């Protein structure tokens, strides 16, 4: 409303202003209009256009030609030119939909140059380089300026309405979290096309108004730099904010006036300004003002009476038969059958790399399967993601409303219903909070509410308890029971065994892409095959190796680390003496890999210290940690797939000056004879076991003081894993200092002198290897609470 009033007021002002100032006001208003259009593309859809001046030119030439050549009145010409620009925008969106980032920038640049050159070349129509002059404007400069101001007010009001409309919200959702948008039925294609059409129409309209203001158009009216200036208008003002283009247009129009003595350096100043805004205020002027306004206004919370909540579903259910997919010859999911009846919670568990998330992706259609079928009875299917994917810039309430809309651009999405769902999942925060600012637990709840809002018959949950503390996890379990009680077929993939064993009606255990057990929780927990998959065969006795005497070589104390706002490690300590082997054990999701990444410098610990021979390494970048002698053989091997085996090995010795390629690589081939015939092969073609040997060899060639190994046996066939563990035992016997993370505890405990067991990001047990084995089953498969002996 205020935008419309402001537009009318500015229009009235134009009618009484002196001609020059009316002209300036009209130009600013036209810039606001094209800026608002670009703000749909950049601010809502998140795409950069570097050729937007082309649409201005289309509108300007359109109006001029329709008036001069076809004799149409200005108003009709303006409408037709705007429609024409929109049509061109729709056509241009076809290539733009298929590409993004630099590719899209190229498409828009090319478009701008085409329009520019066509205006010069098609001289019989466009007047060539000298352009078209004497374009009649029926209302004079003041009238045109007034019209521009009025339309600018209307466009801003429309922008504000659109940004909150279902289509506008969907556009932001696609830009902020494409996969999550897809999961609630929002198609990216129509949304992005709409963004281009709206941006093009606004450009055409503004171009038509500009030609009305000046009565003249030429190719020089809209050079390449205009496109950059338009970006500046939106970015400086504040992308995604309704007042952004206004502030930007005023800044861009006012600056040349203020710098009239420096007219030559206008672009220099603009370039520097754009850079400065990108550095210090990515939200632009409007973004900064809005943040300040939010601080002032804090306390006035949005109040919506919740209604509805969980709606009963009837006759749903999920049937999965023979689902299979393989990646590069490795079967990730090898013929899985799964039945999830309505009103029941069916959990899928299994050790790391068993194929659980892949299975979810196949069922939800995020990944095409090689074979098998998925049947959803009685409705639709919704899912959540392992890493929460909130729509960072959308409010909690609007996120759930988008779920209620299920991708439709029209229809009812009552706020009360959304609030009811949020209440049902236990969300107690403010409804207007933005998704990106939520604490971790609330992100999880929001994600659940968003999925439930689509009213699914089947709900797939990918590790919903990851990162939640014990009370939150318990509340999540209660919510899931209520969801199931409403008739939804719930499929839960989860590492938290207490949750799984506590809420599930039945449990399916995957290992290496196959179902190895299924049944009631207590039956599955007692199954020897399940225990073997989690803990190893149990054939080897724990090592009786004594701890070495002396001071610690690697000393880890109180390390905390995580990803973004999600804290994973809550203060982990571990000391390893030279020549010792230490084991780091724990269930999936306990924080083992995070600890390895924090030690190696791939993620920065937020607290605590990592000392190697007394030298503090915490906070150093990964390459510096590696150079200091703390070398990680990462999870999943991570060999360089297109480099040869020999090249991979040489890279291990990157930081060494005393590297002798011939004899040292020969020594590795003696240690790992299987690699010898593969020396000139690309490493990506090796089997999993061979890649793991290569990764260990690569790590050893760095001559590490301590070698960290993250899940070396992951995904290997039992015999191969055994052979690898023998190699590691040999290394330990030679006096190498090792820290081994492995889920198959029995194999590692046969080598290690001592170790720690992680649970929930903390050390729940520590001590000699033979004392660690007892109680591990509880930590891995739930049951009695593992007690701390630290």
């Amino acid at each position, binding site marked *: 409303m205020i935008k419309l009033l402001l537009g009318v007021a500015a229009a009235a002002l134009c009618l009484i202003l002196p001609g020059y100032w009316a002209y300036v006001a009209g130009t600013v208003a036209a810039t606001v209009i094209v800026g608002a259009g670009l703000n749909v593309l950049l601010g809502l859809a998140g795409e*950069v256009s570097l050729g937007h001046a082309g649409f201005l030119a289309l509108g300007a030439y359109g109006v001029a030609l329709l008036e001069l050549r076809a004799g149409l009145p200005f108003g009709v010409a303006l409408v037709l030119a705007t429609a024409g620009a929109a049509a061109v925008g729709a056509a*241009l969106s076809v*290539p733009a*939909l*298929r*590409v*993004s*980032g*630099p*590719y899209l*920038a*190229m*498409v828009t*640049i*090319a*478009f701008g*140059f*085409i329009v520019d*050159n*066509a205006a*010069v*070349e098609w001289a019989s129509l466009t007047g060539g380089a000298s352009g078209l002059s004497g374009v009649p404007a029926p209302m004079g400069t003041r009238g045109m300026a007034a019209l521009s101001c009025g339309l600018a007010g209307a466009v801003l009001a429309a922008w504000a309405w659109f940004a909150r409309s279902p289509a506008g919200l969907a556009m932001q959702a696609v830009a902020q979290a494409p996969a999550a948008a897809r999961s609630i039925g929002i198609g990216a294609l129509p949304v992005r096309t709409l963004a281009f059409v709206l941006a093009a129409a606004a450009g055409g309209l503004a171009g038509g108004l500009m030609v009305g203001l000046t009565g003249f158009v030429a190719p020089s009216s809209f050079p*390449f*730099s205009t496109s*950059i200036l338009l*970006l500046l208008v939106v*970015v400086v003002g504040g992308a995604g904010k309704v007042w952004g283009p206004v502030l930007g247009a005023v800044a861009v129009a006012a600056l040349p006036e203020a710098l009239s003595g420096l007219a*030559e*350096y206008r*672009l*220099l100043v*603009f*370039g*520097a300004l*754009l*850079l400065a805004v*990108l*550095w210090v205020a*990515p939200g632009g002027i409007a973004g900064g003002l809005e943040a300040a306004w939010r601080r002032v206004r804090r306390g006035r919370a949005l109040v919506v009476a919740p209604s509805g909540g969980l709606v009963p579903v009837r006759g749903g259910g999920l049937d999965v038969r023979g689902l299979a997919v393989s990646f590069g010859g490795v079967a990730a999911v090898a013929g899985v059958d799964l039945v999830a009846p309505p009103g029941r919670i069916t959990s899928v568990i299994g050790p790391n790399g068993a194929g659980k998330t892949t299975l979810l992706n196949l069922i939800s259609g995020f990944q095409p399967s090689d074979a098998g079928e998925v049947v959803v009875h009685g409705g639709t299917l919704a899912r959540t993601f392992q890493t929460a994917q909130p729509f960072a810039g959308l409010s909690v309430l609007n996120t759930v409303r988008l779920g209620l809309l299920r991708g439709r651009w029209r229809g009812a999405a009552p706020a009360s219903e959304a609030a009811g769902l949020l209440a049902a999942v236990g969300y107690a925060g403010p409804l207007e909070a933005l998704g990106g600012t939520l604490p971790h637990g609330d992100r999880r709840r929001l994600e659940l509410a968003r999925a439930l809002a689509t009213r699914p018959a089947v709900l797939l949950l990918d590790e919903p308890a990851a990162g939640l503390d014990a009370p939150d996890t318990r509340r999540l379990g209660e919510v899931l029971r209520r969801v199931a009680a409403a008739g939804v077929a719930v499929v839960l993939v989860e590492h938290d065994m207490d949750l799984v064993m506590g809420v599930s009606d039945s449990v399916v255990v995957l290992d290496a892409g196959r179902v190895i057990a299924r049944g009631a929780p207590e039956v599955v927990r007692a199954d020897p095959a399940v225990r073997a998959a989690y803990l190893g065969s149990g054939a080897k006795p724990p090592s009786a190796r004594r701890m070495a005497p002396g001071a610690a070589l690697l000393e880890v104390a109180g390390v905390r680390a995580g990803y973004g706002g999600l804290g994973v490690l809550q203060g982990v300590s571990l000391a390893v003496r030279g020549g010792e082997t230490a084991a780091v054990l724990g269930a999936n999701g306990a924080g083992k890999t995070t600890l390895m990444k924090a030690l190696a*410098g*791939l993620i920065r610990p937020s607290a605590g210290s990592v000392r190697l021979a007394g030298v503090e390494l915490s906070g150093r*970048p*990964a*390459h510096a940690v*590696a*150079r200091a002698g703390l*070398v*990680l053989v990462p999870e999943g091997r*991570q060999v*360089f*797939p297109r*480099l040869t085996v020999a*090249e991979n090995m*040489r*890279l*291990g010795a*990157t*930081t060494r000056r005393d590297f002798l390629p011939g004899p040292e690589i020969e020594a590795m081939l003696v240690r790992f004879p299987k690699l010898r015939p593969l020396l000139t092969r690309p490493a990506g073609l090796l089997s999993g076991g061979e890649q793991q040997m290569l990764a260990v060899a*690569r790590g050893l060639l*760095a001559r590490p003081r301590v070698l960290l190994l993250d899940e070396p046996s992951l995904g290997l066939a039992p015999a191969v894993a055994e052979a690898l563990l023998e190699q590691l035992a040999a290394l330990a016997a030679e006096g190498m200092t090792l820290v081994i993370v492995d889920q198959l505890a029995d194999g590692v405990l046969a080598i290690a002198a001592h170790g720690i067991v992680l649970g929930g990001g903390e050390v729940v047990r520590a001590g000699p290897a033979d004392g660690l084995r007892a109680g591990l089953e509880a930590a891995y498969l739930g049951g009695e609470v593992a007690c701390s002996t630290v």
Partner: protein
Amino acid sequence: MLETALVSGLGSGSVYGLIALGFTLTFAVSGTVNFAQGSSMMLGAVVCHALAVGWRWPYAAAVPVALVACALWGAVVERLAVRPFVRRGSDAWLMATVALGIVLDNAVMALFGKEPRSLPSSLADEPIVWGEVGVFPLQLLIPAVLLAVALGLHWALRRTGLGLRLRAAVENADAARLMGIDVVRLVALTFAAAAALAGLGGILVAPLFNVAYDMGTLFGVKAFAVAILGGLTRPWGVVAAGLAYGLVEAGTTVWLGSGATQIITFSAVILALAAAPAGVFGRGRVRV
């Protein structure tokens, strides 16, 4: 007539190829590019002009110094306009490099002036005449330089330690860091190398055209088109695309006039991207 055009097309195509090779270098390692590569090209020509004409340095000294200046500029672009945004996880580097290019162009305009100036060269004085075709030696030198650079790059990537580290960083940056490779510095190095390659293109082409503060814009845009058509991560694809682009451009100019050239070539770029989003000569990153 056509033959002359084709030779000149080969020349400008080679310059596109040189600049585009720079795009492939940085994109392969970091997934980012200096969108203002045209400004780097201009910087090479302008510094070379200032040294060789202004201060009367011999080319043997002016060219290397100009290339070093470009390399420094490339490192500055990476530090100021790319790294801060990549750290934040933002793709505003695209706009930031454009902005920095505008700053450089206009700063040069203030120092160097608006008027185009010529860069004399003995290689562009006397054409070699074969029958009816006259060709400046420089026009033959440019494609030769492109091929030499591409071969040198090919060799360096496969046969030197730095090349091996670079390929490792391209394949898996985190694993490369675990090998003790300073990936951040490698990225800065590729930006410096990319700017130097563009500067070399600018110096080579300057005697045939003119030196001006805005000479790089169109070259940069076309070189980016070439890089995308060539597949962005494939050096030989980019070389082929550069030469093809130059030849098509020259051919179109002969048949249809210079103005039609840009319309046709840029339309071809859009159509090519619509038909083969990953580039014509390679595979790139495509929206899913």
